[in-house]
């Protein structure tokens, strides 16, 4: 049985990805994994952007504005990862841990 893919299908998958990413950030303790989950959230946004762009047509032409933002997001995410990993590495060098529950010296 074949059903046509609608906007809602894409949004559902994107929402699922976002939720998985968020759950990972909330529940995992390893900084690297948390960071990966954050990237997953950005990918969820990318997916829905493409979907919105594809289904939002004028005269049969998709609205490419959304896809412009998508490329910016990919680029920015790359920059974020570069900086983020460097910081995590620096943390690992000085503390020999990447567990979030070990970085709690400031509170209150």
């Amino acid at each position, binding site marked *: 049985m074949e059903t046509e893919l609608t906007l809602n299908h894409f949004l559902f998958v994107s929402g699922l990805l976002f939720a998985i990413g*968020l759950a990972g950030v909330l529940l995992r303790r390893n900084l690297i994994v948390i960071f990966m989950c954050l990237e997953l959230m950005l990918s969820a946004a990318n997916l*829905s952007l493409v979907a919105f762009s594809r289904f939002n047509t004028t005269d049969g032409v998709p609205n490419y504005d959304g896809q412009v*933002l998508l490329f910016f997001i990919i680029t920015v995410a790359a*920059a*974020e990862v570069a900086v983020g990993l460097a910081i*995590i590495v*620096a943390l690992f060098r*000085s503390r020999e841990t990447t567990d979030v529950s070990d*970085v709690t010296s400031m509170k209150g």
Partner: protein
Amino acid sequence: MPVYYLEIIVVVLGLVMLMADAFVKLEDKRNIAWFAVLVLSVVFLLLFKVSWPESTEGSPFWKFYDAEKGSRGFSLFFKGIAVLTTIIVLIMSAEFRGVLLKYTAKPEDGAHPQSGLSEFFTLPVFACAGLMWMASANNLASIFVSLEAVTITFYILVAYMRRNVGSLEAGVKYLILGALSTGFLVYGFTWLFGVTGTMDLAGIKEQLALDSVNVTAALFAFALIIVALGFKVGAAPFQNWIPDVYQGAPTPITAFLSVASKAAGFIVLLRISGCFFGSGDLSEKVGAVFVVLAILTLLFGNLAALPQTNFKRLLAYSSIAHAGFLLMALASPITLVADGKEPPLLDTSIGVIAFYLGAYLLMTLLAFLVMTAVRNQQEDDSLEGYAGLAKRSPFLAFSLLVSMASLAGVPLTAGFFGKFFVFKLAIQNGACGWLIAAGVIGAAAGFYYYFKVIASMFWNAPAEGNDGPIPVSMPAKVVMVLLIIAIFAVGIVPNLILGLIK
């Protein structure tokens, strides 16, 4: 000169600074900072000289860069805040170099004794360019890119002292929470694009005002965006990162975060929420959200500041508290005058917020300048370290006195009129009683914890070991004197700042 040249100049300045570090032999790397201060001062003056295009039709560039007549003054004002803050932060950084070098590198044989310093001067310049762009961003894409340009630069700067436990921890916390908020921001943008089919803020406003708009989806998008922007400005319940990150970051960067980053966050918040205030259904809910956020932020920032014992952390909570007052202004939405005329500046949220931020810049940077000078002499930023400051350095004690009095809102200082205009706006627009009550409680608590600092400076004896005099370098001294004069000048003639906006 076209207005966007300013951002270009600042970016080129950053590149030149990097090149200079690599290719020019410098005895003292502070010269790079002085050079940047000089160029940025010129940029600041150029702000008064820029021109705008006659017509923006047809040019794709202006889809990303705001040129609306009504908001030009504000764009330039916020650009001015960014440039001014960067200048003062650079001067502060030069003052802070001793502490910084101690925690960055162990110089190897043959390496420059100040290696690693020039990047610390260069990154704020890049952040400045991002902040300036943010002040003019009027498209979801340009908002996102400029916001991230600033945020990623701050990740590096916060974690810059990589041999210092606090700085690194602050960096990690800022990184994870910042990236989380970015995730919400783009997801919100996505939905906003999905609801309205456009990236343009003007187009979004038009679409949202239509009856056919999907209100639920629009509110969902708004919620996600508010989460991210609330994070940037430090609104409760998304303020968690502020105390830890402020405490751990190098002091000049804390100052930068608390002034420029907050100002930029507020202008984006104003622009995006402005789209939602256009339509009846939405604006009611959106206004209610700001009221709740403002109440929470006011109470959290001010009350949690009461038991603090670390001065830097105290200022972090104070920064949350001031975000509360700014949100209070935002929560009292614009009442349009009946005959369609432009309302007076101080009857609009944006006018009051601009004034408040201008005043906040003066007093906060003054406090951080004092903190930088004191930090050079002792290891931590605890409040005990400030006991008896009046005996150790009367000048610093007086500066901090002025700054604290202004932050608390004592009449005849700039801070008084900031708070005053916020309350006036709230009362005028019939804001809800709980909001005003929270504001009053916050202001009262503020008096307590700011005066705690003053009392300790003037009435307590210096702590054992921390009782030597404190030297202040000439540039820092000059800046402090200018800031003190500005605080009083604005406190007596508030029109000074309002005049700049026009």
